[in-house]
């Protein structure tokens, strides 16, 4: 089922073109990765898909409808660098988001899903990066959304936490559409069913992981899977598994 449709999307900030002529669709259930280097326009794109920013031109449809009015109750969002509120316990944070969506016993559901029942009374600033990420994801799922956006959910996590969050997201994506941004090619390879390659504000390719990988005529030296596909479609260089530069 098509959950996001983007056609000829452009976003400008003054003279700066953040997104140019972007066209793609996202289907669900499953996990779609928007993959690109820093500054590629991933967060700008996600802001628009989340209804937080307006496109300069183009058409965007989310869950079959326009961006305004935005279907807030059908969408869950985890921002990049979420706020860890001072003097707020894990349980109180969970309670807030359960209350916003009016979910009975939602606090317990969030704590259980985040595996943080034992940490309920801990100030949320004392949670580890992985624990906090689990809390934010669980809070974003409390209203059982059909579509979930996550902006670089594993960017600041250690390898073990990345694996944990990856498993959690795979589980979540079995029942709904999950869209995440990342610049980590290996993470994208391990997690995503579908991919949108975004470099320099332009969509270079989109499709299922299998189709994109299969489209690579011959594997680049040292690169396999999504990594090779990204090189092929985007002509980019890499450092330490992350895309650092891209030229059309």
């Amino acid at each position, binding site marked *: 089922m098509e959950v996001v449709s983007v056609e000829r999307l452009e976003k400008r900030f003054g003279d700066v073109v953040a997104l140019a002529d972007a066209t793609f669709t996202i289907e669900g259930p499953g996990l779609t990765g928007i993959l690109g280097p820093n500054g590629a326009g991933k967060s700008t794109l996600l802001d628009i898909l989340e209804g937080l920013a307006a496109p300069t031109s183009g058409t965007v449809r989310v869950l079959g409808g326009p961006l305004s009015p935005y279907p807030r109750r059908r969408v869950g969002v985890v921002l990049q660098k*979420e*706020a860890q509120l001072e003097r707020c316990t894990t349980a109180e944070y969970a309670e807030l988001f359960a209350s*916003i969506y009016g979910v009975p016993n939602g606090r317990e559901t969030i704590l259980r899903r985040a595996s943080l029942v034992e940490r309920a009374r801990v100030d949320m600033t004392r949670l580890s990066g992985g624990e906090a990420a689990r809390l934010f994801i669980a809070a974003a799922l409390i209203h059982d959304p059909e579509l979930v956006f996550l902006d670089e959910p594993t960017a600041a996590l250690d390898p073990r936490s990345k694996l944990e969050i990856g498993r959690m997201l795979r589980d979540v994506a079995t029942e709904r559409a999950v869209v995440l941004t990342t610049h980590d090619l290996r993470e994208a390879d391990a997690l995503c069913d579908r991919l949108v390659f975004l470099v320099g504000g332009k969509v270079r390719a989109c499709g299922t992981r299998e189709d994109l990988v299969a489209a690579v005529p011959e594997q680049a030296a040292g690169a396999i899977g999504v990594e090779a596909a990204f090189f092929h479609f985007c002509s980019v260089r890499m450092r330490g598994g992350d895309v650092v530069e891209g030229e059309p």
Partner: protein
Amino acid sequence: MTAFWALARLRTLDVLRSRSSAIFVLLFPMLLLLLVGFVFQKGHPFEQRTVVIVDAAGGPGPSEAFAAFDEIVVEHARSEAEALGKLRAKMASAVVVVPAGDEPSRLLVGPREQVLGRGLVGLLPPGTRLETVEASSWGYVHFLFPGMLTFSVMLSGLFATGYTLVLYRQNRFLKKLATTPMPKLVFVLALVAGRALLVLLQIVLVIAAAALAFDVPFSASSAASTVGISMAGFLAFLGVGLVLAAVIESESLVVDLVSAVNVPLVFFSEIFFPLAALPDPLAAIGEALPSTAMVRLVRGVVLYGGVPTGELAWSLGVIALWAVATFAIGLARFRWHD
């Protein structure tokens, strides 16, 4: 470069590169000095002595007796109770009561103003009786109490919305809430309600401390009125904080700005001395401030036995206007995120 100088340089540049911090450190003291000079150009407010006249016949009383003396300021009161309230709060140095009949006038002074009383009685018609009235030694604290209460409520109001909203914008919590169905109005009202409960407690504690430690003369009704007036003032200050939050983006700037605004407000709000002691332009500014209105209302209710209808309407109107206008502007300009 040694570590000492490297770090010292870093700290200095940190302040200088923040425009607001640089202004606060370098320019604000000079502005403050200029302001103080302007405020006190007529001399210290207490160089002048206030004599309150209560004329039962409704006339001007013996005002002309003091006309030749610049250091005497004459005010008129509606009742002896109001005049005594001012005397006990050290807002007046003496009270002249002119009875309606043939009885002689009375000159009332506090226990620490007897020498002044002996001088003044010589200016009044023969037969005027000099009387010393009992007054708490905390009289000036009584006068200051409404100002201190207003100052506390003002800070709470400004920070409750101004600081919190800027902090939430900086740490992206506002953006997070923007991704949820929470309406803007519900969010703002929740902020208001959360702090209102604390401010209510703050007001009750300040009233209790004033009554118990400094003999501020509260009755049940004047205490209740003080709570009501303070909560109305709190709403006006919340609104101002909401407007500040709409135009300020940095947490440190909002702290600097609130600190910078506090100082003139202390001068312009009758917290330490009456507006009459200020130059006319500054007094005019003070008349239009919600802080002045709140101070006057609380002072009238607690110390002077009530507030004249006209003054009550004006002061409540000023507070209401500030509250409505600032909330309207603040809500209209409120954005969840940039």
